[in-house]
């Protein structure tokens, strides 16, 4: 009897192992077959969010025809339908520049604010040229090397000031699409990717993990936490924005600037404990929730200064959306509702600019 008990336990473990292997193999095959049949993704491919971005002589930009999960890029690497290099006669071309907020993260496909603008304005050619994780510095290069050649009539810029609180000049924001993440491994389980999509770790656990990451990053950061809004970073932001606006204006296109909205106003008593604030701090460990909010507000004032100096219109989206919690999926990215509201705020000004009503 004593001998048989460990043997039967071993046998049970063996069966369990076999069953687990079979289930995992079936799950992986099922995920790949499903992707093949319904999404057209080759069975043996290992798609990742990195596929959406490439780096070549044009700098860092979207990879043409790339697709990952719900994100699908066109012939020039933009999110949306294919576009010709030359604008269509009589149809003003509008380029929308920005980072992941503009590219679209939480919205279902076709519901990001640029897509809403596109479908609501068939007399305009609205193109989403946003690239995940792209700060103003990179946008300058992007404009010079790629976008200027598309000869837009209007360029709408929705910059992300919070990038300037990170210690890297052009911080890599994963934010769901994972751009800038390390190169994907040779095998990536699509089944586990699916599971990650539906099994959400409870917020309190994710908060604790994020706080540990923040603490570790902070320990390595030379300056420690910001105690106030760093003015030199605001200056950098203003300088880069001025340069970009000037470059675009020089090409003959009209520019529209949009202030950056956040989920919270900043005065909330439990701001530092909010899950999405902690999540954002993973990218900006030196900034508290209060500093994030204050920096965003200060950057929007600088944006208005740039607009005045360059005589370009400003759409004050921050005034409309900041504090509307249901308009955001996290601290900075819009929900479907937020995108719809953003499009509604932007549309009249954009139409006026595209049809010559708003000055350069």
């Amino acid at each position: 009897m004593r001998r048989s008990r460990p043997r039967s336990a071993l046998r049970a473990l063996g069966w369990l192992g076999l069953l687990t292997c079979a289930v995992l193999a079936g799950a992986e095959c099922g995920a790949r077959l499903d992707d093949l049949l319904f999404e057209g993704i080759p069975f043996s491919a290992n798609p990742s969010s990195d596929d959406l971005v490439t780096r070549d002589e044009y700098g860092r930009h979207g990879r043409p025809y790339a697709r990952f999960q719900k994100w699908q890029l066109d012939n020039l690497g933009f999110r949306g339908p294919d576009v010709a290099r030359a604008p269509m006669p009589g149809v003003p071309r509008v380029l929308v520049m920005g980072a992941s907020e503009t590219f679209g993260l939480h919205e279902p496909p076709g519901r990001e604010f640029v897509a809403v603008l596109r479908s609501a304005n068939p007399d305009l050619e609205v193109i989403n040229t946003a690239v995940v994780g792209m700060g103003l510095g990179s946008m300058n290069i992007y404009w010079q090397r790629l976008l200027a050649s598309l000869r837009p009539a209007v360029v709408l810029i929705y910059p992300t000031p919070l990038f300037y609180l990170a210690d890297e000049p052009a911080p890599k924001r994963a934010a769901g699409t994972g751009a800038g993440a390390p190169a994907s491994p040779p095998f990536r389980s699509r089944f586990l990717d699916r599971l990650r999509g539906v099994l959400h770790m409870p917020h309190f656990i994710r908060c604790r993990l994020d706080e540990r990451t923040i603490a570790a990053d902070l320990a390595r950061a030379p300056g420690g936490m910001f105690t106030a809004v760093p003015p030199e970073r605001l200056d950098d932001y203003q300088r880069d924005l001025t340069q970009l606006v000037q470059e675009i204006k020089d090409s003959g296109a009209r520019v529209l600037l949009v202030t950056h909205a956040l989920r919270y106003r900043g005065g909330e008593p439990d701001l530092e404990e909010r899950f999405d604030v902690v999540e954002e701090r993973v990218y900006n460990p030196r900034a508290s929730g209060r500093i994030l909010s204050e920096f965003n507000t200060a950057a929007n004032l600088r944006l208005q200064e740039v607009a005045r100096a360059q005589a370009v219109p400003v759409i004050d989206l921050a005034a409309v959306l900041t504090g509307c919690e249901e308009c955001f999926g996290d601290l900075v990215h819009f929900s479907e509702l937020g995108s719809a509201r953003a499009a509604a705020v932007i549309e009249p000004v954009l139409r006026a600019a595209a049809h010559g009503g708003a000055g350069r």
Partner: protein
Amino acid sequence: MLFNSLVFIFLFLPVTYLVFWALRSTPQRHVWLTITGYVFYAYWDVRFCLLMAFSTLVSYAAGRAFLRYGPRRWILWVPVSCDLALLGFFKYAGFFAETVNAVARAAHLGPLLPVLHVVLPVGISFYTFHTISYIVDCYRGVVRPTRSLFEFSAYVSLFSQLVAGPIVRFRQIESDLENLASADRRAGLYAGSSFFVYGLVEKVLVADSLARFVNPWLADYTHLSSAATWLAMLGYSMQLYFDFSGYSSMAVGLGLMFGLRIPQNFNSPYRARDPSDFWRRWHISLSTCIRDYLFIPLGGSRGSKWLTVRNIMISMFLGGLWHGANFTFIVWGLYWGTLLALYHLLGRYWDAFPARGVLMFVLALCGWVLFRATDLHMAGGVFARMFVPSSGVLPADWELFLALAVLATLWSVFGPNAFEFHAPARPLVRVPLLGFVFGMTLAIIAGSRASPFLYFQF
């Protein structure tokens, strides 16, 4: 909570199973099945647990009254009226008021009744049928009323058949319920897992894949060409069958895992060669209930031909209405009543028709138009597109949809159903095979493509 959800598969089922088999006595297992049934139901909406508890207590009390006073009519009618009143209020009150108001408006009288927008409790049609069948069977002396409240509540709230059937009659699982302590765990797990995985495949791999095409196509049916409309309806016929058959197979499998033999609910209905044969194969538990508790008490086929036709029409009218408070279901019931009546009158001509299996399939498919339509206007529109050549669109990806629909049709007609399917007996083949297929369904569930069961709405 859905059988095809991660929370059910990885949390509810393992916990329920492990605790159930850790308990030793039959009463303990009755209590546990009752608790898990209510937890399962409360996951959808905790408020309606009270409704189910009320229905259970009333029916149990009726059973005890039969034991004490014998088969009295008032003991039959009071609890049955209670159950029917619950069902009528939650399922039909709004429909009735809207219909009366529509007639009144047509007569320029204005709305006469207030329309209550009541949430329909999931599965109310099923568990009221369970309780009513118990009371009627007790009255008829077919079953001996149980003295154990928890045995009865375990029967009513049994999670495997609670929200979408099959409609299991007490007498069908009475002996299993009484002998839960001596159930064979290993044999139950062996057979039950096979049924459960088979049902998951039917539901998740077939029905939900077809639903990806059927739902958007029929949502925009006014733009479909005739060919596309036929394809959409073929897809829906298969979606509905594999959806409900899948649920029933999973229910049977779950029952076996807990030592309960739940009867077969689908026997490859698209193999049917006449309307009567179809209803012996489709939703067997409902059709036998309608037969035993409605058709036969009305007189069945004992009277003249025309009396039989009347009884068929009444039974199918009420069978249609049972599916939902909508004129589409009433017309669907009458459609089937007409087919059954015609077969009753002209059966010998039908039986001589060589392609009667194909004809039966097409007639069933046409019936699903009424079943799927949100209103009679939509049903008319879909029929018009099917039978009057129209030059609408054939949406993108129709090739894949066609391939899936044809494969599903072949499976439904020529493939084995859950009761005919025998997983390989050798464990070394069986375990990896079932595990692999189970894994495939998990991938689809994790991809958030799995959808609720169609029969939940009834």
